[in-house]
């Protein structure tokens, strides 16, 4: 989720200072990782001095607000997408157009979902570094400095449009490492080529290939006549189910959906188009829908260090109900979404959406519209919360399907550490 840019730079200083090149998986690996983790505190938005600092580093003119919900004041608030979509308020020219276009899409919710967001970001960064030029070629050190400055600037802009996803954070960390480890004597075209190669490798090995591998592994876990519960929309899960269908397995998918995003509709539509038998219902019918199911397969935003899973809000409830009905729960998640953070509840860190989305939309005619007339003048003692994620405790999840295989979610951290070593030894 959010990585404030100031944090990223402190962290990269720490790690580039400490780390030598190469060194894939030695005994000292563990302690290195621990040292790294402590440097990354998120901006707490109820801390005035940190907020002031963050405001100073801002590129766009979006205001930093505080929530009127007392227990959510430490979170970055939803600010509306007005300033960005109008294109005003940021020095155009300073940020690459590809990143600008991307930022608007993030802010408006045109690109959503961990996989798509990260892929779009990687593609945009490829464009950015493809156009990478320098004003002053005198100093060899300059390439390192300029390119990481460029990266920071792009990240800063993107974060202001919407907090980074875990996979995007992992990509930024990877790219920083790559830039830090560029050979000292390089011409600009050579440096550009190496960076582009690194980006391309990440896209292939960490984003595209895993989705297929997960589909391969996961589709074999679906037997004939099974009833699979899924929640909202997940690219990875959809792919897995389609693959199982392609293999000729006959099964039923039960899509559980929720207001206000209704992402499950997109899932149900895609499943229907793929010729898969599909049931569809809302979260209030979840206990009814799950009681006849044989498996639950969930997508994830991230798997954290203790094995708990952040995912679209509502996922935890589905997992909890499935657990209480003894239906096994699997999480399909690429290793790039693994994180070394921990979080006990869904409030310590989260992303907030537009609270007014909770008011019934035009297509929800049968819903109670008592509050719609108050839209612009809600009384101050009436608040609405629209959080985007929740945290599913590790104990509810039988296994994670990642590109490496089927693993317990508590082992995700092992892979995260191995992966970090691998990316630096590239």
């Amino acid at each position, binding site marked *: 989720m959010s990585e404030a840019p100031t944090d990223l730079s402190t962290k990269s200083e720490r790690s580039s200072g400490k780390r030598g090149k190469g060194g894939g*998986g030695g005994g000292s690996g563990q302690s290195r990782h621990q040292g790294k983790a402590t440097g990354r505190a998120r901006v707490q938005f109820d801390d005035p001095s940190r907020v002031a600092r963050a405001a100073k580093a801002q590129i766009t003119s979006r205001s930093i607000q505080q929530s009127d919900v007392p227990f959510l004041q430490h979170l970055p608030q939803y600010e509306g997408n007005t300033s960005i979509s109008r294109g005003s308020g940021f020095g155009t020219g300073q940020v690459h157009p590809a990143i600008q276009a991307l930022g608007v899409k993030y802010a408006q919710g045109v690109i959503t979902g961990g996989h798509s967001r990260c892929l779009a970001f990687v593609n945009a960064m490829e464009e950015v570094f493809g156009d990478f030029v320098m004003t002053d070629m005198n100093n060899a050190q300059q390439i390192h400095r300029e390119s990481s400055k460029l990266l920071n600037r792009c990240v800063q802009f993107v974060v202001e449009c919407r907090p980074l996803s875990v996979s995007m954070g992992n990509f930024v960390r990877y790219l920083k490492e790559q830039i830090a480890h560029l050979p000292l004597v390089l011409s600009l075209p050579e440096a550009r080529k190496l960076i582009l190669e690194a980006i391309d490798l990440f896209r292939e090995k960490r984003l595209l290939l895993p989705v297929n591998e997960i589909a391969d592994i996961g589709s074999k876990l679906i037997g004939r006549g099974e009833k699979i519960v899924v929640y909202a929309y997940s690219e990875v899960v959809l792919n897995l189910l389609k693959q199982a269908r392609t293999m000729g397995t006959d099964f039923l998918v039960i899509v559980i959906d929720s207001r206000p995003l209704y992402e499950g509709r997109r899932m149900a539509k895609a499943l229907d188009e793929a010729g898969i038998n599909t049931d569809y219902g809302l979260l209030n019918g979840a206990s009814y829908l799950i009681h006849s199911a044989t*498996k639950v397969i969930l997508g994830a935003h991230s798997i954290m260090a203790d094995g708990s899973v952040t995912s679209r809000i509502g996922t935890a409830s589905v997992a909890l109900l499935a657990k209480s009905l003894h239906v*096994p729960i*699997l999480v399909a998640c690429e290793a790039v979404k693994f994180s070394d953070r921990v979080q006990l509840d869904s409030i310590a860190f989260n992303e907030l959406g537009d609270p007014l989305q909770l008011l019934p939309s035009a297509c929800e005619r049968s819903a109670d519209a008592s509050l719609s007339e108050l839209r612009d003048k809600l009384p101050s003692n009436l608040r609405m919360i629209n959080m985007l994620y929740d945290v599913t405790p590790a*104990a509810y999840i*039988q*296994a994670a399907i990642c*590109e*490496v*295989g*089927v*693993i*317990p979610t*508590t*082992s995700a951290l*092992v*892979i995260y550490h*191995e*992966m970090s070593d*691998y990316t630096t030894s590239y």
Partner: protein
Amino acid sequence: MADDLDKVSASLQKYLDEGMEGAQAAVQIMINSVTNFTAETIMGLEQELGNTAELIKSTTIGSSMEIRACLETFISAAGRSGFGGQPDVGLAKKCIVSAGEAVRDSIVESHQLIAKYAHNLIQDGSQILTTSCSSAVEAILASSVAKDIKVYVALGYPTRKSYEIVRNLQKLGIRSTVLPDSAVGSLVEQIDVVLVGAEAVMENGAVVNATGTFLLALAAKAVGKPLYVAVERYKFIRLYPLNQKDLRVLAPDSSELEPIEDIEPELKQSIDFFNPHVDLTPPEYIQMLLTDEGLLPPSAVSDSLIQKIYRNYVRC
């Protein structure tokens, strides 16, 4: 092919008759097949290893989870020995044989090591409930003779293998109380620990053992008693069943178990039996695995396995 199978089957039986355990016998056959290997290439050697393993798995004795896990351990030990990099077949054979012998010897020693590591877990005057027969459990109990322990053995219906451990304990001067599996619920509140062996340990730390083990685990959990599983390291296997049904796919039931003996044949023909020979105990029921590499929480199993898997994944 059928010939080979008979041969493997016969030599397995021979080793067992000589007093070896199944796993040891399987490893010995693997070692023999490498020693007797005559072809010229290392690739052929690799194939031979795979073929023999498959042959052993397709015998009745060799189809158990335990031996499958053991063969997996053997093959990965052979892989680690670096035989693939040797200049000639002779050297490669030597590598494998010495790795294999290490595995075989570790099996022999494992029980004593387990007993050593588990020693402090058994308190003076403990009342211990077990089922089926496990050499590792036997070793732990034998090393606790001086502690005035009381042993309860659930019968392990219908195989009644449990009498074997009762017999062996009796030789050591430990008197055990035998109970039918159906009496576990009535007994469990008065015991201190449940201690069982395992046929194999799955990737997530779940344990596969003789039917009845899960029932003991459920009972122990319900009254808050710890369940310890004494298991040799070679029994860790890369399988990930999600529930009992998955396990039955991985370990199909052998048909020889005759569940009910005292009924008239006509009735027997008109009823169906549900008679799995193993069941699955999920990791959340297990307090600790007592292995020859020390005491492990169930989650540690996957962590160590996964590190290896990931490195393989990245390599290829």
